[in-house]
C-alpha cells in the first residue's frame, strides 16, 4: 500500500508543476503588455512603470515564477483589479458556495444514478430500464444550462415553488443542484447498470441463488458490493465534472460561486482572480482524482499488486 501511495504521489508532482506553469504563463500570454492593460487606457508611462514594478513584471521570469508559486502556497494571489480586495478574500466565500452546490449535486447524482442503475440492472429491459435509458440519453445530449432554464420555467415561473436565483435557504439550492446533478446521475446510472449486470452473470451469484438465498439478499449483499468498484471511479470523476459544470450552472441561477466569479472576472479582464480560481479548481480536480484512485485501491485489493 505504501509503495502504491508513494508512486501515485510522485505522479502528482509533475502534473501540479505543469498546472502552476500554465496558470503562471497566462498573464504573459495576454497579447500586448500586461502592465499597460492593468494600468488602464489613460495611464501615463510613469503609471505603467509603477504597475510593472508592483506586479513584479520587471523581474526575471524564473524569479517571477518562484514568487508566484511561493505566494500561491501561502494563499496570496494579489489584489483584484476590479474591487481592490485581496483575491483570497474574494475567492474563499465563493469557493465555499461552489462546494455546497457541488456536494448537493453529487448527492443527487449518486442517489438518483445508483438507485435507477440498480433497478435497471435487476429488471433488465423492463419499461423502467428503457425509460431510464431514454432519459439518460436525452440528459447527456442536453446543454447543461438548458435543463436549468426549463426547470426555472416550470418550477419557478409557473409553479412558484422555488426562487429564480441567488442564494438563501435550502429552496435556493434545489434547482441548481438538480440541474448540475441530474446529467451526471445519468452517467452513474449507466455505469451502475452495466457493472451490476456483469456481476449478476458471475458464477458466485449463481451459487448464492442455488443455495436458496432470497433474491434481495443476493443482489444486496453479493452483487451490489462488487458492482460498486467501477462505480466509485465514475463518481470520483463526476466530482471533477461537477466542478467544471458548476461554472455554467452558477451563471444560470446567479449562484454566487467561484464559477460565476470566474466568468465575471474574464468579462472584466480581472487576471489575478482568473488565475487564482483556475488554479484552485484545477488543483482540487487533480486531488479529487488522486483520492478516487486511492479509494479504488482500498475497495479493490487487486489494484495494489500491480
Amino acid at each position, binding site marked *: 500500500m505504501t509503495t502504491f501511495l508513494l508512486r501515485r504521489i510522485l505522479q502528482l508532482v509533475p502534473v501540479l508543476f505543469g498546472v502552476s506553469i500554465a496558470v503562471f504563463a497566462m498573464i504573459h500570454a495576454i497579447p500586448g503588455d500586461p502592465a499597460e492593460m492593468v494600468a488602464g487606457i489613460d495611464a501615463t508611462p510613469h503609471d505603467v512603470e509603477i504597475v510593472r514594478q508592483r506586479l513584479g513584471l520587471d523581474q526575471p521570469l524564473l524569479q517571477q515564477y518562484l514568487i508566484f508559486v511561493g505566494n500561491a502556497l501561502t494563499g496570496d494571489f494579489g489584489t483584484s483589479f476590479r474591487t481592490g480586495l485581496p483575491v483570497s478574500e474574494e475567492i474563499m466565500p465563493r469557493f465555499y458556495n461552489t462546494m455546497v452546490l457541488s456536494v448537493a449535486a453529487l448527492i443527487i447524482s449518486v442517489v438518483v444514478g445508483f438507485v435507477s442503475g440498480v433497478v435497471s440492472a435487476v429488471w433488465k429491459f423492463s419499461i423502467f430500464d428503457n425509460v431510464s435509458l431514454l432519459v439518460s440519453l436525452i440528459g*447527456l445530449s442536453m446543454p*447543461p444550462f438548458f435543463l436549468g*432554464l426549463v426547470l426555472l420555467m416550470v418550477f419557478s*415561473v409557473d409553479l412558484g415553488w422555488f426562487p429564480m436565483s441567488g442564494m438563501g435557504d435550502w429552496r435556493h439550492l434545489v434547482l441548481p443542484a438538480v440541474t448540475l446533478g441530474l446529467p451526471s446521475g445519468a452517467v452513474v446510472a449507466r455505469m451502475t447498470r452495466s457493472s451490476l449486470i456483469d456481476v449478476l452473470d458471475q458464477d458466485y451469484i449463481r451459487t448464492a441463488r442455488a443455495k436458496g438465498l432470497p433474491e434481495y439478499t443476493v443482489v444486496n449483499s453479493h452483487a451490489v458490493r462488487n458492482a460498486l468498484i467501477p462505480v466509485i471511479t465514475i463518481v470520483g470523476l463526476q466530482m471533477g465534472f461537477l466542478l467544471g459544470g458548476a*461554472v455554467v450552472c452558477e451563471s444560470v441561477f446567479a449562484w454566487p460561486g467561484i464559477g460565476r466569479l470566474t466568468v465575471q472576472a474574464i468579462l472584466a479582464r480581472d487576471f489575478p482572480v482568473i488565475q487564482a480560481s483556475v488554479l484552485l479548481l484545477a488543483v482540487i480536480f487533480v486531488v479529487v482524482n488522486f483520492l478516487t484512485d486511492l479509494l479504488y485501491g482500498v475497495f479493490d485489493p487487486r489494484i495494489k499488486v500491480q
Partner: protein
Amino acid sequence: MSNAVLSAAKAKPAARPLSPRMASWRRTFRQLRRSRLAIPAGCVLLVFVLVALFAPLIATHDPFKNDLANALLTPSSAHWMGTDELGRDLFSRIVHGARLSFMAGIASVAISMLIGVPLGMISGYVGGRVDAVIMRVMDVILAFPGVLLAIAIISIAGATFTNAVVGVAVNTVPIFARVARGSTLSVKEEAYIEACRALGTSDFRIIWRHILPNISASLSVLATLRVGISILVVASLSFLGLGAQAPLPEWGAMLSNGRTYLLIAPHLVLFPGVAIIVLVLAINLFQDGLRLALDPKSANR
C-alpha cells in the same frame, strides 16, 4: 464467434467480388442497421447537415434583419418559430445557427485530431522518454476540469466564436492522444509491423501507412462522440458570453439572449434548446450504432 466465422467463410464465394474497401463499408452499414436507432438518428443528422448546407435557401427571412414593429411574436404562419426581441425571424436564425454548430463541432474535433493523433501515435510508437514527456503534458491539460481550460484560453485571447472553438479543441487534444497512443501500443506488437521493420520500412511510413489505417476505426468512433460534446461545450461558452457574440445566430448565444424574456416569450429559449438537443441526440445515437458496427466485439455483450 466461431459460428460467425464459419458462416462468413461460407457466404464468401457466393457474394459478388468487391474491393476490400467497399466490402468493409458494406459490412459497417449492415452492422449499423442492427442498432435499431442508428439509422433513424443518421437520417435526422442528414436533415441537419442539409439544413446547414442550404441554410440561405431554407431560411424564410434574413436572420440579421431587425423589425422592431414585430418583436417577440409567438409562432405563426409568417414566422414559424416567432420572432426575437429585435423582431428577427427565429426560424431563419436557427437554420443559420445549424451552420455555426456544425462548424464548432467539426472544426474543434478536426483541430484536436490533427494535434492529438500524431502526438499519441509518436508517443506510443517511440515510447521511452518521448512518451513520458508527451503524456505528462497531456496530463496537465486534463488537470483542468470541464470547460475551465477553454475559459482560461478565452480569457487571454478574447471572447469570440473562433477562440471558443480553439479552446475546446485544446481541451480535446489529450483525449485523442490517449486513445491514439493506446491503440498504437497494441497495433505495434502485431506481426505485420515487425515484418515492415524487417523489410527496412521507415518509421514514418510505418506510422502513416500501417498503424494509422488500423487505428482509424476507434478514432472515428471517438471523433463522432466528441463532435456532439464539442457542440454542447461551444454552446455553453456562448451562453456564458464567452463564445459567439451578438448578432451571430449561435444557438447557445440565442438561449442566453432569450433568458431575459423567459417570462414573456419562452419560445426564444425552447426552440434553440430543442435544436441543440435533437442534433446532439442524433449524433450520440448514430455514434453508438457506429461503435457497435466498427467494434462487433462490444455488440455481443
